[in-house]
């Protein structure tokens, strides 16, 4: 197995992993009970999802201008997305939204 093959496999694995995180985040966005949990799920897409996808593409591209640009994109998303998530959660809290706790959900009963 040549180094190129290893790079190819590592790149593919990163892409699959990143795509999996995007799907998991989307599932959580649809299925979680309240806004805060959903925001948490969505932040998975922006951090781990995009991170692994960019890493996979960067491994594929090698040391080039493309991987530099990918690095910039990851840095930008890594900076803006947590700030936006924080602002969103803060605004929701400010507007009176409260997280759904286990104790609020009577139908589930107390924790075992």
């Amino acid at each position, binding site marked *: 197995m040549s180094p190129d093959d290893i790079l190819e496999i590592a790149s593919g694995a990163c892409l699959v992993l990143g795509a999996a995180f995007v799907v998991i985040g989307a599932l959580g966005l649809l299925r979680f009970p309240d806004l805060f949990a959903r925001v948490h799920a969505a932040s998975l897409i922006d951090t781990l999802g995009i991170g692994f996808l960019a890493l996979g593409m960067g491994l594929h591209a090698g040391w080039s201008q493309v991987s530099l640009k990918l690095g910039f994109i990851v840095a930008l998303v890594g*900076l803006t997305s947590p700030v936006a998530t*924080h*602002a969103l959660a*803060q605004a929701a809290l*400010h507007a009176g939204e409260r997280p759904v706790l286990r104790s609020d959900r009577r139908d589930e009963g107390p924790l075992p």
Partner: protein
Amino acid sequence: MTGVTSESIVLFVNTALLLLMCAAALGVVRLRNLFAVVMLGGVYSFLMASLMVALDAVDVGMTETAVGAGISVVLMLSVLGLTKTREAAPRHRPLVALVVSAVVAVSLLYASGDLPPFGDPAAPAHQHVAPEYLARAPVETGAPNIVTAVLASYRGYDTLGETAVILTGGIGVLVLLLGARRRRGGVRQGGAGESPEGTGAPMLRDTVILRVGAKILLPFILLFALYVQFHGDFGPGGGFQAGVAAATGVVLYALVFGVASAQRVAPVRVVLVMVPLGVLIYAGTGLAGMLAGGNYLDYSVLAHDPVHGQHWGIFAVESGVFVTVSGTMLAIFYAFAGRRQAREEEGAGR
């Protein structure tokens, strides 16, 4: 990999984008919560921009991102700050409108059957003047981005008209909003005399993380605007996109740190002067060409040789576009923000 050609990937991406755009448009029609509608409008613009990039029209995609997904969402949100956020249910069944839309859609679909295949080099659009531009622009203007060469030089009149349209739109909005304020006693500079903490949504002001994040981002946004402005000859971009990007930076500053702080960076008086100044720069470049012995908006006579003249001319008119676009966007934003503040003070005084 057999079976998966790049063409089928392009088809798949375009279909997915168009389906998502349909979903966003349906959401805009069905939803009554106007905040969600504004956000979906931004999503629609972003999908449209992605489609433009997929079609290799990067300049248009950039404009769509900056204007459609960026500043118009912010302006719409500041309008929502002044009005109700729920749309009233229509009292009638819009049957006539539905029939008209259906008839227009069906006839357009019927007509699209006669269009040449997409990307066909023999299509009339690619046979008329386009080959001429493609062949002559790099030689005559020295600008590798032919979009910029066509926009600023060959079709300079059109772009002058577009800039004048922005000026007119800006004047219209400002007359409507500022005229109402003047009746209540003088043009107010949106609280310039107050402390910088006096304005802006309180929940945003208290957020340290947001402040730090915005402070880190702002220099890059402004640098990017300047890059798009001065790199427009060589890559995608130009005055329109750069103007909106710069205005977006100031709007971000206003949202996080308060309108009064932003108005110390970009004072209302300066912004109001910028609105017509850009069109004057543009039109003045045309006059300079006439004074130098050429035609109106002929840049070839501006320097010692025609290619340099074209460079200077394109630079000058793109700067004019930048000044007018960024000034107008900021003026409209200030007008909405100042109006909301005036209303809040009125409510407090009562």
